[in-house]
């Protein structure tokens, strides 16, 4: 098929005397290069497969495969992000669901096929880059290629003439080419050789090894990135905890509500600091009620050290002993006391309610298992409205996220909470299977309304409940990933390498000076010809050649 760019030029670049288009780079598996059939035997076959795997075409194929394989993860719900949505999907699609599940469509990014693609890609990458690195290291020590006999084919050319001798011209050209960029004059820009060609002189110069170096750095940094991400996966831990205003927690696995760890994690690596939530500020836009600022003021105490004050904000995690603590959520935790029928305190404490909307209408459950004697266990389910507004009989809503007029609206259940069945329970959910809801004489469910400081009787003589206060709570997320720095370092290396490999110009420049002959007027003068070649399209090549020639002429003027 017809191709324009960049083979012709690139191949000429690798070997300017070779006819353009003739493959000089080793790219096995290309349609033009006849694939030599491997000699029979496992080794030959293995070598052939390896060559295929490390060919550019396979890299291309694998990259496209990777792009395609990443897409299903946005189409289907993913377990890693939302287990509940996966469960919903499975119940809604009883036939296709399980099959998709078996094929890994709900865990795309840890599925066998996705992993296989990127692992193959990285094997291919290493197989491709290591030999190239070796070649490049050799090239770094090499000299610029000799001046070609004819300049006619080169994309950039220039001519001039002078009275100075060819040798003087070439010396000047050498100086000009060795001179670094104007702002960084000590950085030699070209590697230069001077040739005595018998009758004439020439210089050959080359610059831009940075381009290939950048390319190699980029690819190797990708490998480093993969390795550090994998290391982080194995060593990391992450815990989530809810801390109520005025209370604290210690950094220990059991103190977290959920804790997740890599395979190489050891619990000893947790530093046992403690953290106390002193206060929590929340600001909202007075009109749109959109959140504007959340700040948690905490006191952190490292073992054996003085307590220290700190703040945690969204976007501004707190660093403690290499771990970072994020402010992940917040809400209200009404403080309640329940007296049972015998008048004993059956429950006392702050119960986190989960906000359901922008005005913090929050849902929560109070489980009271420790009733005295053989009374029935009590469960309270309901909502907290931070700023309650009555819309109608038994109809309330919250009009503001701030606690301007808090109201608790609870329904009452009694029976067996089912906490000793051995099945782990969600603290935010009441298992109603063994419980009965309290109703009034008309059979309508009983609803309790409480404001802070109020005590109301529970129906059916179950006791009383008191709304003592309304502290806030924060949901904290503590995360430790020792490889984080490396991930960043390799990402930035990859970026720098990429920029160098795409933007650093790779150029060759030749200048030849011969005693003038032929046309009258050139008699006795020196004819200077120059040519330039660049890798890829290079807008700056011709201007650079012109600059070199002009500067050479100036230099000759000054030195003779």
């Amino acid at each position, binding site marked *: 098929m*017809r191709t324009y*760019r*960049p083979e012709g030029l*690139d191949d000429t670049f690798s070997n300017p005397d070779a006819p353009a288009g003739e493959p000089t780079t080793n790219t096995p598996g*290309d349609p033009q290069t006849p694939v030599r059939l491997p000699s029979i035997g496992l080794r030959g076959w293995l070598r052939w497969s390896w060559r295929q795997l490390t060919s550019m*075409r396979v890299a291309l194929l694998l990259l496209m495969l990777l792009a395609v394989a990443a897409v299903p*993860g946005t189409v289907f719900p993913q377990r890693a992000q939302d287990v509940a949505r996966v469960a919903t999907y499975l119940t809604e699609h009883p036939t296709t669901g399980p099959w998709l599940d078996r094929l890994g469509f709900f865990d795309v990014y840890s599925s066998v096929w996705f992993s296989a693609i990127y692992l193959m890609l990285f094997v291919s990458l290493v197989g491709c880059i290591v030999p190239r690195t070796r070649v490049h290291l050799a090239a770094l020590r090499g000299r610029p290629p000799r001046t070609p006999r004819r300049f006619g084919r080169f*994309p950039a050319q220039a001519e001039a003439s002078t009275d100075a001798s060819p040798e003087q011209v070439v010396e000047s050209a050498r100086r000009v080419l060795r001179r670094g960029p104007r702002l960084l004059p000590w950085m030699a820009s070209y590697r230069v050789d001077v040739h005595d060609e018998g009758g004439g002189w020439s210089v050959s110069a080359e610059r831009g090894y940075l381009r290939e170096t950048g390319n190699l750095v980029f690819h190797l940094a990708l490998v480093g990135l993969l390795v550090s991400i994998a290391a982080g996966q194995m060593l990391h831990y992450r815990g989530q905890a809810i801390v109520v205003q005025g209370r604290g927690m210690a950094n220990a696995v059991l103190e977290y509500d959920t804790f997740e760890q890599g395979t190489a994690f050891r619990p000893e690596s947790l530093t046992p600091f403690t953290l106390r939530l002193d206060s929590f500020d929340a600001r909202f836009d007075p009109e749109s009620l959109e959140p504007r600022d959340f700040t948690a003021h905490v006191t952190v105490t490292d073992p054996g050290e003085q307590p220290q004050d700190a703040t945690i904000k969204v976007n501004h995690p707190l660093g403690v002993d290499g771990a970072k603590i994020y402010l992940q959520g917040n809400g209200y935790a009404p403080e309640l006391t329940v007296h049972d029928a015998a008048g004993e305190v059956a429950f006392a404490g702050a119960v986190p309610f989960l906000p359901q909307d922008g005005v913090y209408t929050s849902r929560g459950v109070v489980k009271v298992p420790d009733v005295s004697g053989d009374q029935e266990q009590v469960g309270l389910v309901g909502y907290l409205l931070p700023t309650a507004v009555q819309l109608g009989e038994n109809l309330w809503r919250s009009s503001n996220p701030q606690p301007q007029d808090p109201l608790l609206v609870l329904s009452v259940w009694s029976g067996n909470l089912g906490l000793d069945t051995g099945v782990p329970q969600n603290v935010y959910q009441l298992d109603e299977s063994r419980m009965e809801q309290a109703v009034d004489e008309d059979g309508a469910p009983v609803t309790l309304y409480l404001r802070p400081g109020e005590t109301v009787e529970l129906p059916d003589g179950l006791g009383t409940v008191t709304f003592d206060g309304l502290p806030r709570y924060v949901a904290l997320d503590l995360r430790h990933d020792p490889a984080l720095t490396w991930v960043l370092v390799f*990402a930035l290396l990859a970026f720098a390498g990429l920029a160098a490999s795409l933007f650093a110009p790779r150029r060759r420049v030749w200048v030849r000076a011969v005693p003038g002959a032929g046309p009258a007027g050139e008699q006795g003068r020196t004819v200077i010809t120059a040519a330039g070649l660049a890798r890829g399209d290079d807008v700056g090549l011709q201007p650079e050649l012109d600059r070199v020639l002009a500067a050479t002429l100036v230099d000759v003027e000054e030195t003779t």
Partner: protein
Amino acid sequence: MNNLGDLSTLLVWAAATAFTVALIAYAVDLARLADNAQRRAADVPVPVAVGADGAPDDRVDVPVVAESAVLGSAAQVAPGRSARAEGIARSTTYLGLALLFAGIVLRGFAAGHWPTSNMYEFALVGTFVAVLVLAIVQRRRVIAFLGVVVMSIAVLLLVLALNVFFVQAEALRPALQNYWLVIHVGVAITATGVFTVAFAAAVLQLLRDARETGRTRLGSPWRRADGLRRTFSGLAVTGRHFTWLEQVPDARRLEALSFRLNAVGFVLWTLTLIGGAIWAEHAWGRYWGWDPKEVGTFVAWVVYAAYLHARTTRGWSGRRAAYFVMVGYAVVIANFTIVNLVVTGKHSYAF
């Protein structure tokens, strides 16, 4: 505060109007090109002619041998361009840019933050960058087709932004209050703008390539649907409606232009990816979580990486590499529209 916001909206409407005029002017120029090319088809076999006519800035003295694959320094001048249309196109492009810039700045003041926090602002800045790149690419020579494609996208996006994405300027949610908003989102928008022009150049490259090589689907027999083919045969790239293609730079130059822009876009996109990961680490406590937006950005990045590889793979450069640009650009746009509007993820609030 709201007055500033309203003024900003007004300026954006004005910019959309200016761009519409520019679009029409580019289209007229293109039509004129086609017209003249048709008439002259016989005497202009190769689109190389130095200083045939046209504005003084076209008379660039470049030796023919030193002709590099560089657009803009080109020694070619298309005969039969409409100088008036080009003048109008150019000035309305600049006018629209100025209006849009003012609109964006006022928007920023009205909201009290860098104006890149929701789809509306994203669309404004993205359009601005795309048109700015267009203006830079055309600073020496108008490429009418590029203008038509980019301006169509720009006008469409602005009108869509004003009518569908519009939200009142307001202060930020805590999760967005970060200088990474400026870096990450700003760079992403810039990259999208650059990709837009690169995409237009790649489309033009494909058309031009098809014409150069005489390839057309409508030319070869379709057996059963032959009647259909005959109906549309006038639209064949090799046909007379596309004679103007002979006035645009050749496929090689367009490929070079597209590549240079894509390379810039790709580096910016890489920065977007890294910046996004750093920001996610600050805001959500993980640098990568396969959120739909993250996946979209990643897929686009991989497609453009594949494009760069395709360019240097024997048998894949040239026309085939341009297909990768189409796919890559489609992913970038889908990542902006579908992922924001349809899929739920952590980035949804940015809408």
